[in-house]
């Protein structure tokens, strides 16, 4: 059968969730079942740093049920991922082991940037709407339980993403430690948020005009639905004015009234207010005129990723371009985004393709190499000498959407090893291969004049032949290639050679 059944599990900070999906070339991705169980893992983690055994027990019971449901549907495969509450819990390895032993489910902890990238993919899955929305200046606000993510688009690719202010669970818990009345409470929340948002605005919003806000998460969905009840708008979007109306109504109600008016339970009602305040501040700061809530969830992103990896589905949106755009944007910030860097990126990519049979790396490594190439000189922003360590630190402390923690570390290491002496015992072979290619790619534009721009690369025998029709002087490049050739040969057993074709 051409249909595939897949289960996506999200071990979230507030809920355990499983979606059962059917993936078919004809109908795309279709959700056929969706289970949610509220369990506040986040509360434990943010309070004590650990998840208590009682919750682990409950979690195992629910995941065990999930496993039965998966069997019932005869799913072919599943991905289970855990987010901030598990990520930040010090005892997470023990819990993962418990879960696997007791339920057979392997849960993978994903980094914040992976998580946000997945939920971003889920949004982009709603292709028609999505492409229309991002034609104007757009920001994505994902107000989660553990943290809030703000991402910005430049034209139609995502350029920046920042994990800002604490999430609603954390805010709620902070509030519980302060004795204050409703009005005070709300202004405290505003203060906490503004503090973070102002910095974000100064750094990233200066020359952008945000018209649309894409809201992700349950709380904004509830607000939009409420707006739809009173107004004529559709159930997945609202204007600024409609938001304001719902916001004012929400702020005027007591906790019990909120439950009644919004049709939600008590625990949800308690996070609706802080989360609405966050959205309100974001809207004021960005000046967005319309909010779109695609209503997608992390599980939707997981299945999208899975379908894409298996090449069962094609997406109109180019996610690789998003990652590269984000890296380029970062390079721009550290003043290393110039023609030279573009050239190095090109060289690296071409070299990766030419060496395909010899390096044995995965397709995913190509994009990592390109990102490394884009960012190889970012440390120079801090210091020109021994900038390797600085580059490493900059990359390690900047979120690049779509990169997992280990991938980010890989990129950072490649960049560091580019600049510093290669230390054999520290780096693994994957880092070494990418470092060798990056070094050679930079060497090919030593003069910063993109002389080898149009070169062709190919392996013949033991040589990587880099042939160019450039007629000028290449001595600097050739010298540099020769300097790096040893390391390159050591890694791949192939000698890079620059050949200058003379015109007859």
């Amino acid at each position: 059968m051409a249909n595939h059944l897949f289960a996506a599990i999200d071990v979230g900070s507030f809920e355990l969730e499983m979606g059962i999906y059917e993936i078919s070339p004809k109908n795309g991705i279709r959700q056929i079942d969706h289970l949610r169980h509220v369990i506040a893992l986040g509360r434990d983690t943010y309070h004590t740093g650990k998840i208590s055994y009682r919750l682990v027990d409950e979690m195992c019971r629910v995941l065990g049920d999930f496993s039965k449901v998966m069997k019932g549907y005869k799913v072919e495969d599943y991905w289970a991922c855990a987010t901030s509450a598990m990520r930040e819990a010090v005892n997470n390895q023990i819990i993962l082991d418990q879960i696997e032993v007791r339920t057979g489910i392997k849960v993978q902890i994903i980094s914040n940037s992976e998580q946000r990238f997945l939920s971003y993919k889920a949004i982009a899955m709603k292709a028609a709407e999505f492409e229309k929305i991002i034609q104007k200046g757009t920001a994505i606000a994902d107000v989660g339980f553990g943290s809030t993510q703000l991402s910005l688009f430049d034209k139609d690719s995502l350029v920046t993403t920042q994990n800002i202010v604490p999430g609603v669970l954390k805010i709620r818990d902070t509030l519980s430690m302060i004795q204050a009345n409703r009005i005070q409470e709300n202004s405290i929340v505003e203060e906490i948020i503004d503090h973070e948002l102002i910095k974000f605005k100064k750094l990233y919003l200066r020359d952008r005009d945000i018209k649309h806000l894409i809201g992700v998460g349950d709380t904004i969905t509830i607000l939009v639905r409420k707006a739809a009840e009173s107004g004529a708008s559709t159930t997945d979007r609202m204007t600024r004015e409609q938001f304001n109306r719902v916001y004012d109504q929400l702020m005027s109600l007591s906790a019990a009234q909120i439950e009644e008016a919004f049709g939600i339970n008590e625990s949800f009602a308690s996070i609706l207010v802080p989360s609405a305040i966050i959205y309100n501040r974001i809207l004021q700061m960005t000046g967005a005129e319309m909010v779109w809530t695609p209503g997608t969830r992390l599980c939707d992103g997981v299945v999208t990723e899975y379908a894409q990896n298996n090449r069962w589905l094609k997406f109109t949106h180019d996610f690789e371009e998003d990652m590269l755009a984000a890296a380029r944007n970062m390079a721009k910030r550290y003043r290393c985004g110039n023609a030279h860097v573009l050239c190095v990126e090109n060289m690296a990519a071409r070299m990766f393709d030419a060496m395909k049979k010899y390096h044995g790396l995965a397709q995913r490594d190509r994009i990592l190499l390109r990102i490394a190439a884009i960012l190889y000189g970012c440390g120079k922003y801090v210091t020109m000498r021994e900038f390797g360590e600085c580059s490493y630190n900059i990359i390690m402390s900047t979120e690049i959407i779509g990169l997992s923690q280990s991938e980010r570390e890989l990129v950072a290491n490649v960049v560091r090893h580019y600049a510093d002496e290669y230390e054999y015992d520290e780096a693994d072979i994957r880092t070494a291969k990418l470092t060798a290619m990056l070094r050679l790619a930079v060497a090919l534009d030593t003069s910063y004049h993109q002389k080898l721009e149009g070169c062709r690369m190919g392996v013949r025998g033991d040589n990587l032949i880099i042939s160019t029709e450039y007629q000028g002087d290449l001595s600097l490049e050739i010298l540099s290639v020769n300097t790096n050739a040893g390391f390159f040969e050591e890694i791949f057993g192939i000698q890079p050679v620059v050949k200058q074709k003379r015109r007859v």
Partner: protein
Amino acid sequence: MAETDARFVQPENFVNRELSWLEFDYRILEEARDKTIPLFERLKFLSITASNLDEFFMVRVASLKDMVHAGYTKPDMAGLKPDEQLVKIGEKTHELVALQYSTYTRSLVPALRQNGLRIVGRHEELTEAEGAWVDKYFQDNVYPVLTPMAVDSSRPFPLIYNKSLNIAALIRKKDGDGEIDFAMVRVPAVLPRIIEIPVSEERVVILLEEIIERHLSALFSNCDIIAAHPFRIMRNADLSIDEEEAEDLLKEIEKLLKRRQWGEAIRLEIEDNTDKRILKRLKKELKLQNADIYQVNGPLDLTFLMKMYGLPDFEHLKVSPYHPQPNPAFMNDDDIFANIRKGDILLHHPYESFDPVVKFIQTAARDPEVLAIKQTLYRVSGNSPIVAALAAAADNGKQVSVLVELKARFDEENNINWAKMLEKAGCHVIYGLVGLKTHSKITLVVRREEDGIRRYVHLGTGNYNDSTAKLYTDCGLLTCHPQIGEDATAVFNMLSGYSEPLHWNHLVVAPIWLRKRFVRLIERETHHASTGRPARIIAKVNSLCDRDIIAKLYEASCAGVKIDLIVRGICGLRAGVPGLSENITVRSIVGNFLEHSRIFYFENNGMPEYYMGSADWMPRNLDRRVEIVFPILDVELQQKAMHILEVQLEDNLKAHVLQPDGSYVKVDRRGKMPLGAQDTFCGEAVAAARAVEARQDPVNTRVFVPVESPN
């Protein structure tokens, strides 16, 4: 939700639900008194009034008594406090019982006699030959199972079982000091209550208690029998389980079942010429008030008439049995899933057969492509083929989840057995939800097909009970609409304890969303009417006693919404009251089949919406039960639903119309063709099935269809 005008919620606008229920029993009694109805059918109706009254006492009266004991004095929506209600109920019930017995003795017994069936009311009336036969019957069958019990200073007053029939007697030892003792014998429930005496051409029956009374001296051999009278008591049987404490619901209910025997006595039925000493003794021992004592002129516990209905050879005095017809959508060789894929199917039971529903589950249990079957079971019949199919499905490796509602009144014992059986077979059984009764009727079949997962759903207004489906009028929808399938999946996820779905497509679920939806639907009609647009509501329910819904209906009526209600039983609304409900009519249909379907129609300014479901307009349905109301989306099926409502509104044979003073009168038929809704539906179902048969008959089509080898 807009606030309701205070004037609509005044107590005088409402009728107490218990008194309204008694009105319903009166309407059934009226059927028993209707001479145009075949004699044996009248017996049946009388029997129903009696069994209804039993249940009414055990549950409703009992809980009112509990309230009085607990000092609960909050008035109901009609402004009556529990003790006031009990007084009114007592008065009305005594009248009802008197009418029951005058119907029995003055009308039915003579009529039976005329038709060749003699009921021996007192054993003294037996002929010699009959007496001899009865004596032998007693020796052979009755005597061995009797346990006579005498009461004296060494033996305490015996425990009298709920609803059991007993004979109380006063005895005096032949050689004693003349002291009179109380004695008692229980009429065994294991023996048939009515016994036919086959000694002559004439058909003669006698009741078991009369046979025992005739032989009392054999039981108390050295005593004189001074007086003997049968009596029957009813005990408090209301189940109120403390669910917070009930670790395991199942165990709790098993315990309660045993305890039910021992509740407080709330009613005593006894012959009207009973010896005063017996009456006094019983009253004292059972701690009864005078109002709780019903002295009747005739045999106790008229439910035996249902057995009498079953006597052979009186078919000419009964309505000829109706055979449920196949629904035309299934009259072909395609399998049930293929037929559902052709379009939604609305079944109207019992006019149309319940078989497709059973077959739906049976086919699913065998079908290799079916992954899962999920169902809610409320009241299941003994030897239910559905339960067997579910067990078979689990055996075939399918994921089977069943929610068995243990709290279905009086059926607990039955349900526990099925539940255990299913669990053994490998089904995932949920034993109800804490704090809620699951009343919804829904089945979901998940099937893996060529083009992906497809979900088939059955939604009904009646239980998955193939026996009652022949007697109750119900509707059922079979569909594979993807959005309803999604909702059905969400329902079962919620029943399994997961969070509510992010949104519902079509189904409306109580206790969380249903009340609000009904209020909104009614308010929408009110709004249309007040802006001069067409507005109409037709609703068919079993009971209507929710204060808020009624108030909303008053409001709608005042705004000019035309409202026609078909309410079988309790109706707390006052119809046709000027300034309050001029635009509301209420009718109740009491027929051979028990009206049970719930259908709702809202005109919605020319874009009508039709709903059906498991919920009545009662607080318990809207607030404390899991109920599902589903829309009828298919236009053709909407017409079928409308037809059902229209025919019921035109009924002038079995319909009783509620008057502004709270009484019900039969429809004035002058100048109209007699029309009975149930008969009409029977006729239509037969005609529809015939039409399909005729179309398929090779003689008519003039084409022979060769049968190919299957696959």
